[in-house]
């Protein structure tokens, strides 16, 4: 079935079987491997992408359902070689270790900040409760999301040193 999905701002076409998962469309058809397949049981959130701005688990959606819609993956955060504030914050606050959950965490965090730029620790923890991390114990993930929120809300360069993609 021929579908068109706007991925990170650009229309991408593909001819797919209806049973192809959105996660596989993104990774295998479009070559965007920042989105990870972790548990395959809708539990871990490593496959999280934004669908029309909302976090969804791409392992639990068929690619055909995204036809005509907008998907944002972690690759869509980088703008003109500059790290997105959420990426800079995760770098600055050491919000990752192995990095497997990180794309999902950043996208979920960004979606939270779009609604609530100054979330409390509890609000962040609630928002990321669909994303599992095995490495960090979540503390620095929370700090990173809050730091990004402060950056984006006030425009201050709390994480300015970290914004150059290295």
């Amino acid at each position: 079935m021929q579908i068109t999905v706007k991925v990170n701002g650009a229309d991408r076409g593909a001819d797919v079987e209806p049973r192809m998962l959105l996660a596989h469309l993104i990774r295998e058809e479009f070559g965007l491997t920042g989105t990870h397949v972790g548990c395959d049981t809708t539990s871990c959130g490593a496959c999280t992408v934004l669908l029309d701005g909302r976090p969804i688990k791409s392992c639990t959606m068929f690619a055909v359902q995204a036809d005509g819609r907008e998907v944002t993956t972690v690759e869509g955060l980088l703008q003109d070689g500059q790290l997105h504030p959420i990426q800079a914050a995760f770098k600055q606050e050491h919000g990752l270790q192995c990095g497997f959950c990180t794309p999902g965490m950043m996208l979920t965090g960004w979606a939270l900040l779009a609604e609530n730029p100054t979330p409390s620790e509890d609000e962040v923890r609630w928002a990321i409760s669909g994303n599992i991390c095995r490495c960090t114990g979540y503390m620095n993930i929370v700090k990173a999301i809050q730091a990004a929120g402060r950056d984006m809300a006030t425009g201050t360069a709390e994480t300015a040193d970290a914004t150059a993609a290295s």
Partner: protein
Amino acid sequence: MLPSRFEYHRPDSLEEALHLLAEYGDEAKVLAGGQSLIPVMKLRLAAPAHLVDIGRLGLEAIAEADGRLAIGALARHRDLERSDLVRDRYPVMAAAAPLISDPIVRNLGTIGGSLCHADPAGDWGSVMLALRGSVVLRSERGERELAISEFLQDTFTTALEPDEILTEVRVPQPAGPFGGTYLKLERKVGDFATVAAALHLSLSDGTIESAGIGLTAVASKNLQAEDAEASLAGAEPTEAAFAEAGRLAAEASSPVTDVRGSAEYKRHVVDVYVRRGLARALEMARAA
């Protein structure tokens, strides 16, 4: 794993969707949010030859009219979580919505899909039993409304015919001073309930006019604790009355011993949750 092959249909209208179901019958499954169906298909526990995607048909309004709350079947859990109307007037629903699965799943999962999936560990079924909700089922043959207690028949089994789509969920407007809540014990966010309970009280002149008690994950389907409800109807809302209701509800439950706990433990939690939930409902009703 990957699902087995199927043909995908995305009708532009409800009429077209109903026609597809009339044509394909029990070879077809309706796809709403997919947060229960797709995992089941990935495990190949279900392998429908046809999927009819109704996700873009706009069946998602949440509004009060004609003495009841009408919820489009495609209302996402997140929509109900954020609805002011639900928060202000349907506290059992407002308490349950944020506890369903996790926030990401709630962006896609729907109330209609949840009820049709009829997992005994599903949350909306118990809520609707406690609130005496009903569902509207449409087909090319017409439309019918069923009480949720009639709709939910057995584990993963409902009264939905192969050519029918659940289009709307209805909840009667609460009478008198009312209160309610949903208490859920789970090992972690996103896990199925170990035990959960939906409690609703309507008061009249300080006594209990009616009580609703729906239990999750303690029977082969969502369980309405009818004896416990009956013990409360017309009674004074005392701690003793609530204790008796808790005892009756626990007795009516038939949980299984599994990784989440022993049957004895789960029955105990039913008792605790019914007593605790009724106390909260009473507090809320008195404050109204």
